[in-house]
């Protein structure tokens, strides 16, 4: 029994004489899973900098990023997507890392605004991390200060494309 539970946990339980885990590598199933992932990108509420007013605009009815399944969700254990909303200071950098580590795999990161991409306006500041990609891997870069909601949505679309292609 114990062995079975552990097998279930690892996703390789034998059912009808073949391993379920291997189904994931079968192309139609893989595509289906990626499609499902791409359209339910729940995102984390982690405000790091000044792009947060546009978060409101994106989440509310005019641009409504929820059309693409990116619902800002309170619990990061259930989230797939981490938005880095602008400037990441050195104090915040540790928290960004902790937040990223807590999220379940597969997880994706979108860096919004040029402070998150390269330090931007704070290229000489004593307390700003020069680009969030020094701490965590970034999938999509969205420039702007802050990016327009449309640019934001374009970033989400790019990420969806990336997920659906299985990259």
């Amino acid at each position, binding site marked *: 029994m114990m062995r079975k539970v552990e097998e279930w946990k690892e996703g390789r339980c034998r059912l009808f004489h073949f391993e379920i885990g291997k189904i994931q590598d079968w192309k139609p199933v893989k595509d289906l899973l990626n499609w499902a992932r791409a359209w339910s990108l729940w995102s984390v509420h982690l405000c790091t900098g000044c792009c947060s007013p546009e978060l409101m605009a994106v989440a509310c009815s005019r641009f409504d990023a929820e059309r693409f399944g990116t619902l800002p969700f309170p619990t990061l254990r259930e989230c797939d997507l981490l938005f880095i909303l602008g400037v990441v200071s050195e104090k915040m950098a540790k928290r960004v890392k902790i937040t990223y580590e807590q999220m379940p795999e597969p997880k994706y990161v979108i860096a919004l605004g040029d402070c998150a991409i390269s330090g931007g306006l704070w290229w000489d500041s004593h307390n700003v991390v020069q680009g969030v990609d020094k701490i965590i891997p970034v999938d999509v870069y969205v420039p702007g*200060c802050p990016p327009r909601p449309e640019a934001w949505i374009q970033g989400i679309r790019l990420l969806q494309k990336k997920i659906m292609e299985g990259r």
Partner: protein
Amino acid sequence: MVFSWIVSILRPLGMAFRHIFKYRFTVKYPYYVLETSERYRGRPVLDLAKCVGCGVCATICPNKAITMVNVEDRRYPQFDAGRCCFCGFCAYFCLTSALKMNGGYELSEYDKSNLIYPPEKLVKVPPPPPERKKVVKLKKLSLSTGVTHG
């Protein structure tokens, strides 16, 4: 007293109900786009014929997003979208108005190095993507049709 409380709670419900029948507010972005204003500050676009390579844009830039590079022994600005804060000072203070901030806002990339626009890439005004169906005018969306809420 109790009656007024109930009214105060029911009133919003009624108001929200009325809004079901109003004009739709959401812009279905990738298929429909909002028309941006003429002054909208997107990516700068360079006019090579007008540029004299004076370097005012690189001097005024608060972010050091613009650097001057040599192309065929002339100096032209090279632009890094990953650094720009889109303040528009480079275009405003440009002596010959060779820089214009109308290169659009769809600049997202997978790779950071694609965000750097050398002069030959900076001259291009991005064409509208083919999946676009319609450009929504600001006026139509806003008030002439009544309420803008959904």
